[in-house]
């Protein structure tokens, strides 16, 4: 039984159809002491059937600390979005989701997948230049609540 209504599945399938490059969702999880990890996995599992460009890679947060550190992940559930560069090599989008991507956050996740999958960024040309000029490490955290 899918978590997503059939009509919404079709909308997502259409939207994912526009993707020009693959997106890997690196999902950090642990078996014990993570109330929302299973729910997050169930939500993520809905996506690959809707697009052959979307894959899930599950990473055990307890056993693979190095990988978590590499992605700057210090808690679970967490999702890191990895796309491809022009030479088809993996390219970290540096976009992360901490917590269950349900409700409005699910739409944010879908938008992020589409962006990493090739949809043009919504930034204006001038803003794109300004953001591209930021080369030093900056962390942005956007706090939301489920709606």
């Amino acid at each position, binding site marked *: 039984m899918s978590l997503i209504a059939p009509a919404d599945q079709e909308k997502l399938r259409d939207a994912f159809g526009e993707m020009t490059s693959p997106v890997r969702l690196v999902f950090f999880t642990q078996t014990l002491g993570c109330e929302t990890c299973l729910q997050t996995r169930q939500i993520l599992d809905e996506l690959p059937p809707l697009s052959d460009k979307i894959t899930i890679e599950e990473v055990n947060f307890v056993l693979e600390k190095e990988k978590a550190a590499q992605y700057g992940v210090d808690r679970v559930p967490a999702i890191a979005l990895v796309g491809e560069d022009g030479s088809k090599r993996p390219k970290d989008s540096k976009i992360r989701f901490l*917590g269950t991507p349900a409700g409005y956050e699910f739409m944010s996740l879908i938008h992020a997948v589409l962006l*990493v999958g090739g949809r043009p960024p919504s*930034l*204006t040309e001038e803003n794109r230049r300004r953001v591209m000029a930021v080369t030093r490490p900056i962390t942005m*955290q956007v706090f939301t609540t*489920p709606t």
Partner: protein
Amino acid sequence: MAFVSPGITAFAVEATEFPDLARKYQVSGVPKTVIDGGDAQVEILGALPQNAFIEQALAQVSAAAREPEHQTKS
């Protein structure tokens, strides 16, 4: 912004699942964005139009970014 910028990493944080982070950054309303550039930190409460958001998000951290560069060059 993270996708376009070589330096920016972006986290969407579900505040109710991580009350320790919400407390640490004093999240009293959402969306709240905390931008950390090491020696400069900016907070934006609420949603802003794109130009205003980028203006506020980058003004201080970019300014702080330039100063150390000048110091290392001199």
